[in-house]
């Protein structure tokens, strides 16, 4: 009974414990926290962890989806069902002004489109909601400027991140002190990898958007990327949609999210595929390749 083995947590459970601790810190230290919900697999995991953190009670804060209106239809369907079934308070924010101005990636370019529909929209949504802490599902293994970010990541009154003045974060002591107008972004999944996320999804049987699993889909091949052909997407001259067996590793806006060729139709197959795969998941995100240090730049301005 009292063997040393009995006091060891496997690595996923250690990550789970760490994340729950962080989520509870947010509940204890902030007045109006919110979970940034992006409908993706990491969001699904984050929401599950938040449920566990407050059980047997409910998650004591709302979920916020910053909706560019350019997400895949399957994502909207999943979002509404998922949130209804677990009974959370979902708030959807659409950047009305930018959308009215007709912002889209084809005419404005991806940099400007992202800046207006996501970064600015997020800042507006947080300000309008009066949220002082925003929990997000970003992980350090996604991108190298994210590898530098703290778990509690301070934002000034303009929502900006200053990588040179990050607060030292020692042990598990997170400094959540802010002044009026300032806010905190909090990343409970910082130390998880993409593989951990999938293993946890498998272990906990967490629902995710079906687009993560391989299927025959209508795609356009552009610059070596597989771009989904959905109603409303514009084709470049000479492009022809074709049917490809593929899956999505990350989900974003349909004009900027690529797929990977894959035959993995179950979580176990995805895990197996990942173990032998050596490209990063964000390689399918067209926006990250826009400029040198494009993620860092976006983050400085307030992007997640």
């Amino acid at each position: 009974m009292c063997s040393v083995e009995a006091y060891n947590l496997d690595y996923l459970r250690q990550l789970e414990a760490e994340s729950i601790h962080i989520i509870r810190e947010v509940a204890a230290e902030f007045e109006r926290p919110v979970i940034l919900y992006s409908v993706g697999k990491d969001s699904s995991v984050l929401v599950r962890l938040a449920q566990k953190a407050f059980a047997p009670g409910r998650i004591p804060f709302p979920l916020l989806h910053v909706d560019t209106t350019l997400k895949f239809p399957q994502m909207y369907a999943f979002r509404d069902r998922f949130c209804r079934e677990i009974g959370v308070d979902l708030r959807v924010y659409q950047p009305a002004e930018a959308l009215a101005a007709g912002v889209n990636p084809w005419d404005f370019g991806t940099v400007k489109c992202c800046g207006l529909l996501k970064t600015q929209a997020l800042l507006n949504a947080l300000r309008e909601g009066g949220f002082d802490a925003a929990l997000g599902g970003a992980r350090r293994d996604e991108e190298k400027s994210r590898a530098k970010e703290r778990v509690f990541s301070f934002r000034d009154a303009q929502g900006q991140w200053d990588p040179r003045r990050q607060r030292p974060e020692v042990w598990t002591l997170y400094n959540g002190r802010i002044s009026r107008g300032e806010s905190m972004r909090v990343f409970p999944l910082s130390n998880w990898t993409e593989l951990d996320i999938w293993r946890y999804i498998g272990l906990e049987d967490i629902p995710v958007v079906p687009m993560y699993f391989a299927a025959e889909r209508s795609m356009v091949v552009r610059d070596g990327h597989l771009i989904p052909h959905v109603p409303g997407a514009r084709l470049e001259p000479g492009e022809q949609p074709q049917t490809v067996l593929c899956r999505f590793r990350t989900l974003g806006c349909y004009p900027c999210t690529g797929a990977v060729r894959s035959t993995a139709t179950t979580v176990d197959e995805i895990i197996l595929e990942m173990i032998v795969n050596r490209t990063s998941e964000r390689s399918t995100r067209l926006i990250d390749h826009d400029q040198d240090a494009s993620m860092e730049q976006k983050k400085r301005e307030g992007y997640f």
Partner: protein
Amino acid sequence: MGAPPDSMAPTADLLRLATVGSVDDGKSTLIGRLLVDCEAVCLDHLAALKADSRRLNRQEADLAFLTDGLKAEREQGITIDVAYRTFSTPKRRFLLADTPGHEQYTRNMVTGASTADLAVLLLDAQRGLTTQSKRHGFIASLLGVPHLVLAVNKMDLVGYSEAAFQEISEQYKSFAARLRISSLTCIPLSALCGDNVVAKSVRMPWYSGPTLLDYMESLYIGSARNLVDFRFPVQLVLRPGPHFRGYAGTVLSGLVRVGDEVLTLPSHRSVKVQSIRGPDGPLDYAFPPQAVVLVLDSQIDLSRGDMLVHPKNQCHVARDIEAMLIWMHEKPCLLTRPYLIKHTTNLVKGAFSRLHYRVNPNNLHREQCATLGLNEIGRVDVHLFRPLLCDEYQRNRATGGFAVIDPLTNETVGVGLVIERTLQQPGTVPSPGCQDEGILGPKAVTIWLTGLSGSGKSTIASELMRQLVQRGRPCCVLDGDALRQGLNRDLGFSPQDRAENIRRTAEVAKLMNGAGVTVIVALISPFRRDRAAARSTIGSDRFMEVFVDAPLEVCESRDPKGLYAKARNGQVPEFTGISSPYEPPTEPDLHLQTATMSPEESAREVIDHLERKDGATP
């Protein structure tokens, strides 16, 4: 191609390591090499790396760019902030914190090292030891990182010379001997060329030890967790409805079981654990680092920041603590205003009431100072406005460490480590193990003041006490008169009784020395034989005989207690100097002539002598 599946399995064990060292020692390159050689780098990241290197006119793919995630870092070729990387081999999973070497960013090194099991300290074989490499080794030991690897890098630039490696290793070993590190391993390598990082180097056949990765894979780290002292700070009170009240939190150390009697601190109420709820439902017991909810058998007032412990194993409840403080802000530490102390789930106001000294990381010497500036480390007294529920850091990382927050700017400006209190505090005796020479304190000694009544022993003793306390040295005075009122009240002044008086005093001094307390004995102790016996009881290396010498006339003219007058009248038999002999020391460690010296000067002399004796660790 990739690592076999098992390496990333949830059951694989995890080594947390931090890489530290000076600017240009090649830390980021080393990590890049580890990642590339372990095939832990994604192909598109490798392609981006090559593009970045070309743009900045580097000849080859610069491995450092893999971890230098910020644009300014790649442009300046330095690491500014900690980068975290998870990677794995078939044997183990690693969470690596790459910490900056630039002195300006030492605070970020502290961030990276605070949770590490292993610190890999890089040195440039051409440059040898630097202030930064000593500072980093010192900080790693202070933060309780148990294992240290000295990676002597750039061996290719010194012709893979064994002599060069040996010299640096020896230099560092002699420095590190004074640090609290349980293991130090030196490995010669070249991150750029890949020698002894993952693959064994054929260019250093004289080296038979492990490669860096071999070492990382085989290091045993099981003992790092504290499963003895149950500490559960309440993080959040969960009250989802009228029928449930639970205390959410993370078990920082120790174990708790359903049915356990636990004590609430600081309120000291005894309650029973009725149930434990884990992330997946009820548990019979919980252990670190589980995040759980405890339900107690009675409704009590308990809130965030309170602590649950076992009644027979309690933490300190202290308003005054001593700590090693690592200052992390450009604005120096102020002793004139309060800061916020963030400790477990508590946030308490506190002020630094005294700065004992700062430590020079180069030679570990203690230096007097008025304040602590950026990256300086010193020993402080902290006065808290509400009690802190803490343990010594060396015993418990989770309840011994705190962050210091500036209440005006909200910035984290420092990090503190609770150390054992040195001033007299009833009921706490420092344990012997912590008082060996080292960063926490010099060796405790007995300063034996001998001399005629009125020669100035008691006055010097109390002055000495004052000066030693100021230096943060635990100490205590054993004064002859005071002893005769208590411990030795059954003794008279016959030679036999005097001998017994000294024997008992020496035994007490020995015990106190063993507990880390420096003892100042102020006792006439007139006979050489008795003093020699005291020396042999206490041990020559700890015994310091000080002859407090003043001519009889001078003593008699001082006569603070009016004893000489009585002795002259025959009212006090066997009075030393009058009716009983005094045998002056023939070879005292120190000879103080108090007729011509003030008590302050005398005390100063003793301390100078003491510090010379302490040698490198005053």
